[in-house]
């Protein structure tokens, strides 16, 4: 069955430190891959997406993600976190028939 796993429920990083949020999936073919961010009191906003081509994808707000087929992963990274990045992050994976969201990772940024 298709599934999306975000292994980390909550991550705390210091401002200026690097960040990696993990996403693993179980889908048949090369899926459509997305990362969304949800700031407090807001809806979800797309950070980046991957369908094909270069496996390193650049997104908004300085985020990037790398598709690794052998590991069925699509991890989100940022080299230097800002306090405004504190939010909940959702990985989403789809194909031509459905889409599933991960449970989310809440990011706390320490001053």
């Amino acid at each position, binding site marked *: 069955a298709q599934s*999306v796993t*975000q292994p980390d*429920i909550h991550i705390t990083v210091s401002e200026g430190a690097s960040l990696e949020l993990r996403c693993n999936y179980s889908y048949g073919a090369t899926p*459509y891959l*997305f990362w*969304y961010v949800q700031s407090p*009191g*807001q*809806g*979800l*906003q*797309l950070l980046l*997406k991957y*369908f094909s081509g270069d496996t390193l994808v650049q997104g908004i707000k300085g985020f990037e993600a790398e598709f690794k087929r052998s590991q069925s992963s699509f991890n989100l990274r940022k080299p230097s976190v800002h306090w405004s990045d504190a939010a909940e992050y*959702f990985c*989403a994976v*789809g*194909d*031509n*028939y*459905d*889409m*599933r*969201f*991960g*449970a*989310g990772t809440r990011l706390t940024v320490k001053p």
Partner: protein
Amino acid sequence: DVKVTQSSRYLVKRTGEKVFLECVQDMDHENMFWYRQDPGLGLRLIYFSYDVKMKEKGDIPEGYSVSREKKERFSLILESASTNQTSMYLCASSLLGPGRSLYQETQYFGPGTRLLVL
């Protein structure tokens, strides 16, 4: 900018009441979605619609119905609210690009309605 608005940010209802959640998008999108968001479960699709008067069940349609009489408006209806329907409800919309799959399109989300059923 795409704007998706939801009629209420917070709603308190009693068990057995009929509840209407409204969603409006202003970008002429064909597709509209209703999700519920629960801690530890992420977003789960309740219903979606790819055209006026068209609807498809998602993963958890039980206890819900939807209505899409106009392209810009998609309503979620809880026929008889129950306490296990206490949740955050998110509406989203997306384009349908030529030759693309429904699930390739970026979804644009509203701010959500937090519903408490007592």
